[in-house]
Protein backbone atom coordinates (compact mmCIF):
# COMPACT_ATOMS: atom_id res chain seq x y z
CA UNK A 1 0.00 0.00 0.00
CA UNK A 2 1.22 3.57 -0.64
CA UNK A 3 2.77 5.26 2.37
CA UNK A 4 1.80 8.88 3.18
CA UNK A 5 4.26 10.98 5.19
CA UNK A 6 3.32 14.38 6.59
CA UNK A 7 5.58 17.25 7.60
CA UNK A 8 6.21 17.33 11.31
CA UNK A 9 5.18 21.00 11.21
CA UNK A 10 1.60 19.77 11.33
CA UNK A 11 2.14 18.26 14.75
CA UNK A 12 1.75 21.73 16.23
CA UNK A 13 -1.90 21.50 15.28
CA UNK A 14 -2.81 17.80 15.31
CA UNK A 15 -1.40 14.31 15.08
CA UNK A 16 -0.40 13.50 11.52
CA UNK A 17 1.50 10.22 11.66
CA UNK A 18 2.85 8.33 8.67
CA UNK A 19 0.20 5.93 7.43
CA UNK A 20 -0.21 3.24 4.79
CA UNK A 21 -3.49 3.48 2.89
CA UNK A 22 -5.29 2.05 -0.12
CA UNK A 23 -5.33 4.20 -3.26
CA UNK A 24 -4.23 4.19 -6.88
CA UNK A 25 -4.07 7.97 -7.22
CA UNK A 26 -2.91 10.82 -5.03
CA UNK A 27 -6.52 11.85 -4.48
CA UNK A 28 -7.58 8.35 -3.43
CA UNK A 29 -4.67 7.97 -1.04
CA UNK A 30 -5.17 11.37 0.58
CA UNK A 31 -8.92 10.74 0.71
CA UNK A 32 -8.29 7.58 2.69
CA UNK A 33 -6.10 9.51 5.15
CA UNK A 34 -8.69 12.25 5.59
CA UNK A 35 -11.49 9.71 6.10
CA UNK A 36 -9.67 8.59 9.23
CA UNK A 37 -8.45 12.09 10.20
CA UNK A 38 -11.00 14.65 8.91
CA UNK A 39 -9.42 17.67 10.60
CA UNK A 40 -6.27 17.20 8.54
CA UNK A 41 -8.06 17.77 5.23
CA UNK A 42 -8.30 21.56 5.53
CA UNK A 43 -4.59 21.84 6.26
CA UNK A 44 -3.62 20.16 3.00
CA UNK A 45 -6.50 20.94 0.61
CA UNK A 46 -8.35 24.19 -0.05
CA UNK A 47 -12.14 24.70 -0.20
CA UNK A 48 -12.28 23.30 -3.73
CA UNK A 49 -10.27 20.18 -2.93
CA UNK A 50 -7.05 21.35 -4.59
CA UNK A 51 -3.67 21.24 -2.88
CA UNK A 52 -3.11 24.43 -0.90
CA UNK A 53 -0.91 26.91 -2.69
CA UNK A 54 1.90 26.67 -0.17
CA UNK A 55 1.68 22.96 0.45
CA UNK A 56 4.07 20.80 -1.55
CA UNK A 57 3.35 17.16 -2.33
CA UNK A 58 5.84 14.75 -3.85
CA UNK A 59 4.80 11.37 -5.23
CA UNK A 60 7.70 8.95 -5.36
CA UNK A 61 10.18 11.82 -5.37
CA UNK A 62 8.47 14.01 -7.98
CA UNK A 63 6.22 17.06 -7.39
CA UNK A 64 2.55 16.26 -7.88
CA UNK A 65 1.57 17.27 -11.41
CA UNK A 66 -2.18 17.59 -10.97
CA UNK A 67 -2.54 19.89 -7.98
CA UNK A 68 -6.26 20.44 -8.60
CA UNK A 69 -7.57 17.02 -9.59
CA UNK A 70 -5.00 14.98 -7.63
CA UNK A 71 -4.97 12.39 -10.41
CA UNK A 72 -1.26 11.51 -10.19
CA UNK A 73 -0.97 7.71 -10.16
CA UNK A 74 0.52 6.15 -7.05
CA UNK A 75 2.11 2.71 -7.09
CA UNK A 76 1.50 0.19 -4.33
CA UNK A 77 4.99 0.58 -2.90
CA UNK A 78 5.40 4.30 -3.49
CA UNK A 79 5.58 7.14 -1.01
CA UNK A 80 3.67 10.42 -0.84
CA UNK A 81 5.38 13.24 0.99
CA UNK A 82 3.30 16.21 2.17
CA UNK A 83 5.29 19.20 3.33
CA UNK A 84 5.26 22.98 3.30
CA UNK A 85 6.55 25.06 0.41
CA UNK A 86 8.77 27.72 1.88
CA UNK A 87 7.28 31.20 1.94
CA UNK A 88 6.87 34.22 4.14
CA UNK A 89 9.23 35.82 6.59
Amino acid at each position, binding site marked *: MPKVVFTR*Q*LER*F*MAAPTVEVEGATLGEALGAVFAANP*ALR*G*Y*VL*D*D*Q*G*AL*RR*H*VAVFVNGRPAADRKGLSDPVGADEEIYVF*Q*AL*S*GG
Partner: protein
Amino acid sequence: MSDRLYVGTRKGLFEIARKRRAWDVADVHFIGDPVTAVLARGDAVLAALDLGHFGAKLWRKDGNGPWREVAVPAFPPKPEDAGDDPHPWTLGKVWNITPGGADGRLWAGTMPGGLFRSDDGGDTWSLVESLWRMPERLKWFGVAGGEQPGISTVLVDPRDSAKIRVGVSCAGVWATTDAGASWRNINKGMYNEYMPPEQRGDPITQDIHQLAHCAARPEVMWCQHHSAIYRSEDTGENWRELKAARPSGFGFAVAAHPSDPKTAWFVPATKDERRIPVDGKVVVSRTRDGGKSFEVLSRGLPQRHAYDLTHRHALAIDDSGERLAFGSTSGGFWTSEDAGEQWAALDARLPPVSVVRYGVA
Protein backbone atom coordinates in the same frame (compact mmCIF):
# COMPACT_ATOMS: atom_id res chain seq x y z
CA MET B 1 -15.52 49.66 31.00
CA SER B 2 -13.43 46.83 29.70
CA ASP B 3 -10.23 45.79 31.46
CA ARG B 4 -9.11 43.31 28.82
CA LEU B 5 -7.79 43.67 25.29
CA TYR B 6 -7.14 41.05 22.64
CA VAL B 7 -4.46 42.03 20.16
CA GLY B 8 -3.98 39.91 17.06
CA THR B 9 -0.59 40.22 15.43
CA ARG B 10 1.42 38.66 12.67
CA LYS B 11 3.00 36.36 15.22
CA GLY B 12 0.46 35.60 17.88
CA LEU B 13 -2.53 36.71 19.95
CA PHE B 14 -1.73 38.88 22.95
CA GLU B 15 -4.12 39.21 25.87
CA ILE B 16 -3.54 42.54 27.55
CA ALA B 17 -5.13 43.28 30.91
CA ARG B 18 -5.47 46.37 33.07
CA LYS B 19 -4.20 45.96 36.60
CA ARG B 20 -3.32 48.66 39.12
CA ARG B 21 -4.12 51.40 36.59
CA ALA B 22 -1.74 50.05 33.94
CA TRP B 23 -2.04 47.70 30.96
CA ASP B 24 0.29 44.74 30.60
CA VAL B 25 0.52 41.51 28.63
CA ALA B 26 -1.35 38.91 30.65
CA ASP B 27 -1.17 35.96 28.28
CA VAL B 28 0.07 34.98 24.81
CA HIS B 29 -1.70 32.55 22.49
CA PHE B 30 -0.74 31.05 19.10
CA ILE B 31 2.77 32.49 19.35
CA GLY B 32 4.35 32.56 15.90
CA ASP B 33 1.08 32.33 13.96
CA PRO B 34 -0.64 35.22 12.15
CA VAL B 35 -3.93 36.22 13.83
CA THR B 36 -6.32 38.04 11.51
CA ALA B 37 -9.49 38.47 13.60
CA VAL B 38 -10.60 38.07 17.18
CA LEU B 39 -13.84 38.38 19.10
CA ALA B 40 -14.21 38.14 22.89
CA ARG B 41 -17.74 38.06 24.30
CA GLY B 42 -18.63 36.77 27.72
CA ASP B 43 -16.16 34.02 28.56
CA ALA B 44 -15.73 32.92 24.93
CA VAL B 45 -12.91 34.00 22.63
CA LEU B 46 -12.80 33.28 18.90
CA ALA B 47 -9.51 33.74 17.06
CA ALA B 48 -8.93 33.46 13.32
CA LEU B 49 -5.48 32.38 12.16
CA ASP B 50 -3.94 32.67 8.73
CA LEU B 51 -1.39 29.87 8.63
CA GLY B 52 0.81 30.65 5.67
CA HIS B 53 1.03 27.08 4.46
CA PHE B 54 -2.02 25.41 5.88
CA GLY B 55 -4.75 28.00 5.33
CA ALA B 56 -7.14 30.02 7.48
CA LYS B 57 -8.28 28.43 10.72
CA LEU B 58 -10.66 29.29 13.53
CA TRP B 59 -10.10 28.46 17.18
CA ARG B 60 -12.35 28.93 20.19
CA LYS B 61 -11.71 29.13 23.91
CA ASP B 62 -14.40 28.98 26.59
CA GLY B 63 -13.56 30.30 30.02
CA ASN B 64 -10.43 28.67 31.41
CA GLY B 65 -10.77 25.73 29.07
CA PRO B 66 -8.29 24.87 26.33
CA TRP B 67 -8.35 26.29 22.82
CA ARG B 68 -10.12 23.99 20.37
CA GLU B 69 -10.23 24.22 16.63
CA VAL B 70 -13.72 24.80 15.23
CA ALA B 71 -14.97 24.76 11.66
CA VAL B 72 -13.66 27.60 9.56
CA PRO B 73 -15.87 29.34 6.97
CA ALA B 74 -15.58 27.42 3.69
CA PHE B 75 -16.85 28.09 0.20
CA PRO B 76 -19.12 25.60 -1.58
CA PRO B 77 -17.86 23.77 -4.67
CA LYS B 78 -17.40 26.23 -7.52
CA PRO B 79 -20.10 25.54 -10.14
CA GLU B 80 -19.27 25.00 -13.81
CA ASP B 81 -20.99 28.23 -14.84
CA ALA B 82 -18.87 30.36 -12.49
CA GLY B 83 -15.91 30.26 -14.83
CA ASP B 84 -15.84 34.02 -15.33
CA ASP B 85 -15.51 34.71 -11.61
CA PRO B 86 -12.20 36.53 -11.18
CA HIS B 87 -11.96 35.54 -7.53
CA PRO B 88 -11.24 32.15 -5.95
CA TRP B 89 -13.95 30.14 -4.21
CA THR B 90 -11.48 29.40 -1.45
CA LEU B 91 -11.15 31.20 1.86
CA GLY B 92 -8.20 33.58 1.90
CA LYS B 93 -8.59 34.79 5.45
CA VAL B 94 -11.17 35.72 8.03
CA TRP B 95 -10.90 39.50 8.35
CA ASN B 96 -13.44 40.22 11.08
CA ILE B 97 -15.95 38.46 13.32
CA THR B 98 -18.97 40.49 14.39
CA PRO B 99 -21.79 39.70 16.82
CA GLY B 100 -25.16 39.62 15.08
CA GLY B 101 -27.27 41.11 17.85
CA ALA B 102 -29.51 39.69 20.51
CA ASP B 103 -30.05 36.45 18.66
CA GLY B 104 -26.50 35.27 19.31
CA ARG B 105 -25.65 35.11 15.64
CA LEU B 106 -22.13 35.82 14.36
CA TRP B 107 -20.98 37.22 11.03
CA ALA B 108 -17.53 36.73 9.49
CA GLY B 109 -16.20 39.03 6.78
CA THR B 110 -13.52 37.40 4.69
CA MET B 111 -11.19 37.64 1.75
CA PRO B 112 -12.00 36.99 -1.12
CA GLY B 113 -15.25 38.78 -0.25
CA GLY B 114 -17.47 36.07 1.19
CA LEU B 115 -19.74 36.90 4.11
CA PHE B 116 -20.41 33.96 6.44
CA ARG B 117 -23.00 33.42 9.15
CA SER B 118 -22.93 31.25 12.24
CA ASP B 119 -25.96 30.49 14.38
CA ASP B 120 -24.10 28.36 16.92
CA GLY B 121 -21.54 30.75 18.33
CA GLY B 122 -18.95 30.06 15.66
CA ASP B 123 -18.88 26.26 15.68
CA THR B 124 -20.25 26.07 12.11
CA TRP B 125 -20.54 28.64 9.32
CA SER B 126 -22.51 29.05 6.12
CA LEU B 127 -21.80 31.32 3.17
CA VAL B 128 -24.32 34.12 2.58
CA GLU B 129 -25.01 32.98 -0.96
CA SER B 130 -27.26 35.94 -1.80
CA LEU B 131 -24.30 38.32 -1.57
CA TRP B 132 -21.71 35.96 -3.02
CA ARG B 133 -23.83 35.01 -6.06
CA MET B 134 -24.84 38.59 -6.89
CA PRO B 135 -23.69 39.38 -10.44
CA GLU B 136 -22.33 42.72 -9.23
CA ARG B 137 -19.82 40.91 -7.01
CA LEU B 138 -17.82 40.05 -10.11
CA LYS B 139 -16.96 43.77 -10.29
CA TRP B 140 -15.36 43.73 -6.86
CA PHE B 141 -11.61 43.98 -6.96
CA GLY B 142 -8.81 43.53 -4.51
CA VAL B 143 -6.43 46.09 -3.18
CA ALA B 144 -6.27 45.44 0.51
CA GLY B 145 -3.02 43.64 1.06
CA GLY B 146 -3.44 41.42 -1.94
CA GLU B 147 -5.33 40.68 -5.07
CA GLN B 148 -8.57 39.64 -3.38
CA PRO B 149 -11.44 41.91 -2.35
CA GLY B 150 -12.22 41.79 1.34
CA ILE B 151 -15.22 42.51 3.54
CA SER B 152 -13.61 45.06 5.80
CA THR B 153 -16.57 45.79 8.10
CA VAL B 154 -19.88 44.24 9.11
CA LEU B 155 -22.19 46.62 11.00
CA VAL B 156 -25.33 45.19 12.57
CA ASP B 157 -28.03 47.66 13.58
CA PRO B 158 -28.39 47.37 17.39
CA ARG B 159 -32.11 48.14 17.06
CA ASP B 160 -32.84 45.50 14.41
CA SER B 161 -30.31 42.75 13.75
CA ALA B 162 -31.83 42.07 10.31
CA LYS B 163 -30.44 45.43 9.15
CA ILE B 164 -26.79 45.07 8.23
CA ARG B 165 -24.28 47.24 6.40
CA VAL B 166 -21.21 45.63 4.89
CA GLY B 167 -18.17 47.63 3.79
CA VAL B 168 -16.01 46.12 1.07
CA SER B 169 -12.53 46.97 -0.07
CA CYS B 170 -13.13 47.37 -2.93
CA ALA B 171 -16.79 47.50 -3.65
CA GLY B 172 -18.55 50.14 -1.60
CA VAL B 173 -21.20 49.62 1.05
CA TRP B 174 -23.88 46.94 0.72
CA ALA B 175 -27.11 46.92 2.69
CA THR B 176 -29.61 44.28 3.70
CA THR B 177 -32.78 44.79 5.72
CA ASP B 178 -33.81 41.12 5.71
CA ALA B 179 -30.87 39.50 7.54
CA GLY B 180 -28.98 38.90 4.33
CA ALA B 181 -31.67 37.53 2.02
CA SER B 182 -31.22 40.44 -0.39
CA TRP B 183 -28.62 43.16 -0.87
CA ARG B 184 -28.22 46.49 -2.57
CA ASN B 185 -25.30 48.84 -3.10
CA ILE B 186 -25.68 52.16 -1.27
CA ASN B 187 -23.02 54.80 -0.49
CA LYS B 188 -23.80 57.76 -2.72
CA GLY B 189 -21.42 60.70 -2.52
CA MET B 190 -18.07 58.95 -2.32
CA TYR B 191 -15.24 59.55 -4.70
CA ASN B 192 -12.33 57.17 -5.29
CA GLU B 193 -9.51 59.28 -6.63
CA TYR B 194 -7.26 56.45 -7.81
CA MET B 195 -9.82 55.02 -10.26
CA PRO B 196 -10.05 55.98 -13.95
CA PRO B 197 -11.88 59.34 -14.11
CA GLU B 198 -15.21 58.03 -15.38
CA GLN B 199 -15.43 55.50 -12.51
CA ARG B 200 -14.36 57.68 -9.60
CA GLY B 201 -17.89 58.45 -8.48
CA ASP B 202 -19.30 54.96 -9.07
CA PRO B 203 -20.52 53.61 -5.70
CA ILE B 204 -19.26 50.12 -6.50
CA THR B 205 -15.64 51.21 -6.92
CA GLN B 206 -15.34 52.82 -3.50
CA ASP B 207 -12.50 51.59 -1.31
CA ILE B 208 -14.05 51.22 2.14
CA HIS B 209 -11.11 50.89 4.50
CA GLN B 210 -13.39 50.80 7.53
CA LEU B 211 -16.90 51.71 8.67
CA ALA B 212 -18.16 52.50 12.17
CA HIS B 213 -21.46 53.58 13.58
CA CYS B 214 -22.64 55.24 16.78
CA ALA B 215 -24.22 52.38 18.73
CA ALA B 216 -26.86 54.64 20.28
CA ARG B 217 -27.62 56.36 16.96
CA PRO B 218 -26.67 53.79 14.33
CA GLU B 219 -27.99 55.90 11.48
CA VAL B 220 -24.84 57.98 12.01
CA MET B 221 -21.96 56.23 10.28
CA TRP B 222 -18.34 57.10 9.69
CA CYS B 223 -16.10 55.84 6.93
CA GLN B 224 -12.34 55.89 6.63
CA HIS B 225 -12.17 55.62 2.87
CA HIS B 226 -8.99 55.32 0.85
CA SER B 227 -9.42 58.85 -0.46
CA ALA B 228 -10.98 60.71 2.48
CA ILE B 229 -13.05 60.53 5.66
CA TYR B 230 -16.83 60.51 5.17
CA ARG B 231 -19.87 60.72 7.45
CA SER B 232 -23.45 59.62 6.83
CA GLU B 233 -26.59 60.45 8.79
CA ASP B 234 -28.89 58.05 6.95
CA THR B 235 -27.31 54.65 7.64
CA GLY B 236 -24.88 54.87 4.78
CA GLU B 237 -27.14 55.91 1.91
CA ASN B 238 -25.56 59.34 1.43
CA TRP B 239 -22.11 60.43 2.49
CA ARG B 240 -20.42 63.78 3.01
CA GLU B 241 -16.66 64.20 2.83
CA LEU B 242 -15.14 65.70 5.97
CA LYS B 243 -12.67 68.08 4.41
CA ALA B 244 -11.53 69.48 7.76
CA ALA B 245 -9.71 66.20 8.55
CA ARG B 246 -6.15 66.79 9.67
CA PRO B 247 -3.27 66.18 9.54
CA SER B 248 -4.58 64.13 6.59
CA GLY B 249 -7.73 62.40 5.42
CA PHE B 250 -5.87 59.18 4.66
CA GLY B 251 -5.79 56.26 7.04
CA PHE B 252 -7.34 52.89 7.64
CA ALA B 253 -9.03 52.83 11.05
CA VAL B 254 -12.03 54.61 12.55
CA ALA B 255 -13.69 54.32 15.96
CA ALA B 256 -17.12 55.83 16.66
CA HIS B 257 -18.22 57.03 20.06
CA PRO B 258 -20.85 54.58 21.34
CA SER B 259 -23.34 57.27 22.43
CA ASP B 260 -22.23 60.63 20.99
CA PRO B 261 -22.98 60.68 17.26
CA LYS B 262 -20.73 63.67 16.68
CA THR B 263 -17.53 62.06 18.01
CA ALA B 264 -15.14 59.72 16.21
CA TRP B 265 -11.42 58.92 16.13
CA PHE B 266 -9.01 58.17 13.28
CA VAL B 267 -5.31 57.30 12.96
CA PRO B 268 -4.13 59.36 9.99
CA ALA B 269 -1.17 58.74 7.73
CA THR B 270 0.53 60.41 4.80
CA LYS B 271 -1.47 59.49 1.76
CA ASP B 272 -1.06 57.20 0.14
CA GLU B 273 2.12 56.22 -1.62
CA ARG B 274 3.99 56.79 1.61
CA ARG B 275 2.12 54.96 4.30
CA ILE B 276 3.76 56.51 7.32
CA PRO B 277 2.55 59.02 9.89
CA VAL B 278 2.62 62.62 8.68
CA ASP B 279 6.06 64.08 9.50
CA GLY B 280 7.02 60.88 11.35
CA LYS B 281 4.70 61.72 14.27
CA VAL B 282 2.12 59.23 15.50
CA VAL B 283 -1.17 61.00 16.21
CA VAL B 284 -4.85 60.23 16.60
CA SER B 285 -7.34 62.68 15.14
CA ARG B 286 -10.71 63.27 16.77
CA THR B 287 -13.79 65.17 15.82
CA ARG B 288 -16.42 66.08 18.40
CA ASP B 289 -18.64 68.18 16.19
CA GLY B 290 -19.67 65.76 13.49
CA GLY B 291 -16.62 66.41 11.35
CA LYS B 292 -16.70 70.21 11.15
CA SER B 293 -13.35 70.29 12.91
CA PHE B 294 -10.67 67.83 14.01
CA GLU B 295 -8.28 67.82 16.96
CA VAL B 296 -4.84 66.23 16.64
CA LEU B 297 -4.11 64.19 19.78
CA SER B 298 -0.46 63.42 20.46
CA ARG B 299 0.19 63.43 24.24
CA GLY B 300 2.08 60.24 25.05
CA LEU B 301 2.53 59.22 21.41
CA PRO B 302 5.95 59.16 19.70
CA GLN B 303 6.61 62.46 17.96
CA ARG B 304 10.05 61.87 16.51
CA HIS B 305 11.04 59.41 13.79
CA ALA B 306 7.98 57.23 14.28
CA TYR B 307 6.86 55.27 11.23
CA ASP B 308 4.02 53.28 12.71
CA LEU B 309 1.05 52.60 10.46
CA THR B 310 -2.26 51.49 11.97
CA HIS B 311 -4.33 49.06 9.97
CA ARG B 312 -8.10 49.11 9.72
CA HIS B 313 -8.96 46.71 12.53
CA ALA B 314 -6.23 47.88 14.88
CA LEU B 315 -8.06 50.76 16.62
CA ALA B 316 -10.65 49.89 19.27
CA ILE B 317 -12.98 51.73 21.60
CA ASP B 318 -14.71 50.22 24.61
CA ASP B 319 -18.37 50.51 25.48
CA SER B 320 -17.79 53.53 27.73
CA GLY B 321 -16.37 55.68 24.93
CA GLU B 322 -13.51 56.68 27.22
CA ARG B 323 -11.03 53.89 26.64
CA LEU B 324 -9.28 53.50 23.30
CA ALA B 325 -6.40 51.35 22.15
CA PHE B 326 -4.48 51.00 18.92
CA GLY B 327 -1.52 49.10 17.56
CA SER B 328 0.79 49.54 14.61
CA THR B 329 2.60 47.66 11.91
CA SER B 330 5.82 48.41 13.80
CA GLY B 331 4.47 46.73 16.92
CA GLY B 332 3.69 49.94 18.79
CA PHE B 333 0.69 49.74 21.10
CA TRP B 334 -1.00 52.55 23.01
CA THR B 335 -3.99 52.92 25.31
CA SER B 336 -5.99 55.93 26.49
CA GLU B 337 -8.31 56.21 29.47
CA ASP B 338 -9.69 59.65 28.63
CA ALA B 339 -11.01 59.53 25.09
CA GLY B 340 -7.60 60.07 23.56
CA GLU B 341 -6.36 63.13 25.44
CA GLN B 342 -3.46 61.17 26.94
CA TRP B 343 -1.90 57.94 25.68
CA ALA B 344 0.34 55.37 27.37
CA ALA B 345 2.65 53.02 25.49
CA LEU B 346 2.57 49.33 26.33
CA ASP B 347 5.91 48.12 27.67
CA ALA B 348 6.42 45.53 24.95
CA ARG B 349 7.61 45.29 21.36
CA LEU B 350 4.79 43.41 19.70
CA PRO B 351 4.84 41.85 16.24
CA PRO B 352 2.98 43.85 13.56
CA VAL B 353 -0.55 44.43 14.89
CA SER B 354 -3.50 43.48 12.70
CA VAL B 355 -6.47 43.63 15.06
CA VAL B 356 -7.32 45.12 18.45
CA ARG B 357 -10.55 44.28 20.29
CA TYR B 358 -11.82 44.86 23.82
CA GLY B 359 -13.25 41.92 25.68
CA VAL B 360 -16.92 42.53 26.41
CA ALA B 361 -18.69 40.98 29.36
